[in-house]
């Protein structure tokens, strides 16, 4: 496995204007980072953790308090028993049972308190941890939705899922056990240390001296585990990406007998994952026993020093015993602390990745001061527009074009001529590189996303259906639509009949990725979606390519009704659509080379006339 694969993505300058140094997901797959990078990803990971704790700081404080008090109640138990034996027993023998009842009562009280508080902090921990996880989940989801298509086309769904699942899992482990073990351990050590100092400050300093090797060990552990856990995140993301790709493409996997190759690849990745997991666990396997060892050695050292002082007569034997027992107890929570530190390292590595994703800036950004457009008419104008993907070659050279409100435009041209790019610009999937693109005179970049999406809707060739019913999928066009509206939309595009023939009509579950609905039917459903959305500008990018002729005929009828007063931009290889267009634009190499009514162009001798003739031929 490569440790320094360059990640997909553009250079940071591309995404982050203003000279910010953040890298986003740029070096996501790198395991060995230089000092500055490492520091910067670490600190952004901590910032994220801080921002998650901040809104919950009361809950956080409350949890810690509960842990501390419940610890105290628990520690009280042995003291009460000692009291019972040392004081209440002689008193009882002397004929006074009162002290015994006091001791017994106090013990019960402490027991009830300890158990109730334990339950309390377990709940409080869960509340805290779940609140933070929910916050982060929603943040990541919202952010990935906000990120531009440009980003999604490179990042893969598997990675986003990996960020949302296994990375969050790592954080959850820290939150679930970390807070309580850290708080209780620290409190315990603090109390014990105080007692030791009170008994004998020399021993106290000896114990403190143990902190030096512990610190060094922790430093060593931190340095190595940071890399191991980072690697573990990278590898697990790869494993997940491969898994998701296989499962979503299972038909092709089977049809082309990819099973063996895939299984071999997955074995490799799973083995890589196992190796890094073992590596990180083994680091902890040195760290934790190391801490135990340091503690135990310290106890022996305390015994040596104390023993000689006893021999020299400067220390009581009883005091030495107490000191030794306390010293041993002092190191008891070290186990827990090691566990905390371990899950902390794991969570930090995970948050490095999550925070990188959150740091990505959408290339298509909503405006700060949006211009309202409550009643869009649908006039579109390109002013000296130029476009390129990222820093790639220019796809659309300077383009000036104006489309009047209500016009139906057919975009015609060869595959790869730039028709889809033009459509994507109008839908603002991408922003123009140069010039301005306006809707009703307002630059698209100045429109609020809600206004823009209400005004412009694009239907693409890949009609994605979400799991849920057919009705749910159509309602995506207008979430508050009633059943009547949904059915009317389906009727208008000629989809009603087949939907009603499905087992449960509009309530039929479309299954995963629309497995049971044919490609053509999916297009009809997504067409109904667009119909329901009722936009001022409708873009159909090969939206009818999988339809059979009768369906297309129905759609066309619906379309004619639909397009009456709307701007429409239709991209279709089948020129049947052109018949209903007011105007045809022939695009070639990113330029509009012909522009006119269908009749004008067919009558001419240009590309369109040729295309149209070819298409006519293809119909017979």
């Amino acid at each position, binding site marked *: 496995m490569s440790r320094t694969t360059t990640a997909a993505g553009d250079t940071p300058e591309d995404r982050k204007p203003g000279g910010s140094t953040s890298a986003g997901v740029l070096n996501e797959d790198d395991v060995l980072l230089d000092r500055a990078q490492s520091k910067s990803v670490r600190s952004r990971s901590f910032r994220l953790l801080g921002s998650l704790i901040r809104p919950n700081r009361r809950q956080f404080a409350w949890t810690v308090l509960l842990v501390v008090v419940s610890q105290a109640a628990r520690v009280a138990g042995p003291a009460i*028993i000692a009291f019972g*034996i040392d004081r209440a*027993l002689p008193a*009882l023998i002397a004929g006074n049972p009162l002290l*015994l009842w006091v001791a017994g009562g106090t*013990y019960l009280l*402490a027991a009830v308190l300890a*158990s109730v508080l*334990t*339950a*309390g902090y377990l709940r409080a921990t869960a509340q805290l941890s779940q609140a933070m996880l929910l916050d982060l989940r929603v943040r990541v989801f919202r952010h990935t*939705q906000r990120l531009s*298509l440009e980003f999604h086309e490179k990042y*893969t769904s598997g990675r986003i899922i990996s960020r*949302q*699942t296994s990375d969050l899992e790592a954080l959850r482990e820290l939150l679930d056990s970390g807070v309580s073990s850290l708080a209780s351990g620290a409190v315990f050590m603090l109390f014990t240390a105080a007692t030791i100092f009170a008994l004998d400050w020399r021993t106290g300093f000896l114990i403190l001296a143990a902190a030096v090797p512990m610190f060094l060990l922790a430093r060593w552990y931190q340095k190595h585990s940071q890399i191991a856990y980072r690697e573990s995140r990278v590898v697990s993301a790869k*494993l997940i990406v491969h*898994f*998701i*790709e*296989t*499962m*979503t493409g299972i038909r092709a*996997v089977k049809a*082309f007998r*990819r099973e063996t190759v*895939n*299984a071999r690849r*997955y*074995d490799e990745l799973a083995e890589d994952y*196992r190796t890094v997991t*073992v590596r990180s666990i*083994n680091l902890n396997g040195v760290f934790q*026993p190391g801490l135990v060892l340091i503690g*135990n050695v310290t*106890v022996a050292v305390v*015994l040596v020093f104390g023993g000689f002082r006893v021999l020299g007569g400067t220390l009581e034997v009883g005091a*030495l015993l107490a000191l030794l*027992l306390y010293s*041993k107890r002092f190191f008891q929570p070290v186990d827990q602390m090691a566990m905390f530190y371990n899950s902390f390292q794991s969570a930090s590595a995970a948050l490095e990745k999550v925070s990188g994703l959150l740091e990505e800036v959408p290339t298509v950004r909503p405006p700060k001061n949006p211009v309202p457009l409550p009643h869009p008419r649908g006039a579109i104008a390109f002013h000296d527009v130029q476009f390129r993907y990222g820093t790639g070659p220019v796809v659309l050279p300077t383009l000036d074009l104006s489309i009047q409100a209500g016009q139906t435009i057919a975009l015609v*041209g*060869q*595959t790869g001529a730039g028709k889809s790019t033009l459509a994507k610009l109008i839908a603002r*999937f991408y922003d123009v590189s140069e010039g301005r693109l306006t809707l009703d005179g307002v630059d698209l970049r100045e429109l609020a996303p809600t206004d823009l*999406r209400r005004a412009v809707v*694009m239907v*693409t060739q890949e009609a*994605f259906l*979400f799991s849920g019913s057919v009705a749910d999928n159509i309602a*995506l066009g207008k979430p508050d639509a009633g059943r009547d509206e949904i059915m009317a939309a389906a009727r208008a595009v000629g989809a009603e009949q087949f939907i009603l023939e499905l087992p449960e009509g509009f309530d039929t579950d479309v299954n995963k990725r629309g497995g049971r609905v*044919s490609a*053509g039917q999916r297009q009809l459903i997504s067409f109904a979606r667009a119909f329901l959305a009722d936009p001022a500008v409708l873009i159909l990018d*090969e939206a009818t390519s*999988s339809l*059979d*002729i*009768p369906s297309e005929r129905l759609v066309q009828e619906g379309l004619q009704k639909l397009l009456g007063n709307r701007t429409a931009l239709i991209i279709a290889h089948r020129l049947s659509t052109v018949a209903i267009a007011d105007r045809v634009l022939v695009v070639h190499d990113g330029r509009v080379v012909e522009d006119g009514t269908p009749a004008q162009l067919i009558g001419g001798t240009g590309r369109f006339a040729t295309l149209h003739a070819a*298409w006519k031929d*293809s119909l*017979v």
Partner: protein
Amino acid sequence: MTNQNTLWQSLGRLYPHVRPIIPRLVLGLLCALGASVMALAIPQVLRVLINDALAEGGSARTVWVASGVVLLLGVLEATFVALRRQFVITPATTVETKMRTSFYRHLQNLTVEFHDRWGSGQLLSRAMSDLNLMRRWMAFGLIMLVVTSLTVVMGVTIMFFTSWALALIFVAAAVPLIIYGYRFRTSYSRVSRKSQDQAGDLATTVEESVHGIRVLKAFGRSREALEDFEEQAEELRRTEIHKARSLANFSMIVTLLPELALGASLVVGVTLAASGDVSIGALVAFFATAAAVAGPVEFIGPLLAMTFTAKTAIDRHYEVMEAENTITDAAAPVHLDAPRGDVVFGDVHFRYPDAQADADDVLDGIDLRLRAGETMALVGVTGCGKSTLLQLVPRLYDVTGGAITIDGVDLRSFSLEDLRSLVAVAFEDTTLFSTSVRDNVLMGSDATGAEADRLLEEALDVAQAHFAFELPEGLDTLIGEEGLSLSGGQRQRIALARAIAAQPTVLVLDDPLSALDVATEERVEVGLRSMLTSTTTLIVAHRPSTVALADCVALMQDGRIADVGTHSELLARNDHYRYVIASLDDEEIAQLGRAVQPALDDEGALA
């Protein structure tokens, strides 16, 4: 369902996987025991050393010896801790990885029908977090549970020897604990199952939101998607809190009951001591032991919770592992040495397993015959079952009645490997894999070296996918989800090239040219036509232009083949065919019909 498995049944299923590492687990267990014995022994040894040796007027040597003993024990403890991990961790991760890879293999083999029902997020959560949970339980939970129980049993035994009366009080507290523990098991298992399922569903939602990002963006529905997600995440949060509450209540009881018993023991013990029935020394020893046992007893709560979660994880794992693969290799597969490619559909019926009882079969008796080398177009209205029929040929689904044969051999008599080399497909949903263009195209081919290069170029040429040569790194450019994103038309052409390069005997194409413009389509067809002369081809067609590729057309209607003939024959004699395929005006069709009819009459006249 598997939900009703008892704890032992569920955990028992792990046995075959665990068996090879049992010696290591036992060693790990012994080390864990050793470590906890050391931890308990060190204070006792200190006491003896100090009180007896040092107090009796020792020398410098006594101090060194005593320290040496303490140091030795301390080193032993640390060693045991380290050894436990060494013994257990690597084997446990090996078991985990084995289960993970066999899970993946099994998933790949399971039917498409299974994958239709299961979201990939849900499967992912089983492959990743469930197996993680299982491994942790095995390497830590299981061992600690045994060690803790042993510690408690030993402690209680010692307590019995110290004072049986007091010990009885302590043990009495265990009775309600066991009853409550039983209830806890039921409720906690249920809620832990729910939370794991919800987490899987949440992953599925994330997956869909990313794959459907274009639709969400096009309709500006990110907010609604977010709201749905938030609701689902909130539900998961509530389940988790419910789960934590259940554990908290149990922990409360586990802490409370023994402590209450100890409180009672204190009163009874002091009273007994006062009357001289118990010595003060015994009383002190009893409580010292009780204090040592209290920690492990409390630890049992989380350990049991971990065990129940692991049980759920194992159940979820085996639910998938036990899903039966209904499409399997024949017991004694037939191999065709020289396949010709005669394909016969004989009274083929198909219905989806979850179809309603009163629904008709999707395919309701298909009878169709493709001669070797013939190209047959399949025409019918959207949703009439064309795509379903095509998916039966590479056995993505199996017929539910009747049979499909190639050269007279039932599809089910081939090995899947063989069948899928005989048959290549290009579906409308073009799935490309995250690898180079070259590997994507040559995926179904066994050719190597120069032969592979020739095949690759030819396939790309026929599919009119010349753009591939101009990609940034040519044919080595990474495409698919992790690579360069291609347009719909480009993807379709690569997928077509892939089907061609496989050099199948039978080629199945589902509207493979839908995203191409007319000019490109025509060029593809010219190439295809010459390619297809030796290949039996079944091609779903929506347009006359695609039909033009075919020697013959089969018209599908209501799950049956309604008519077979040439394009012009069907155009002339079949109303439904005209309805489906003809986009020309009715008059034009009528004219065409008239134009064809006389020709037929002439032939008839000649005969």
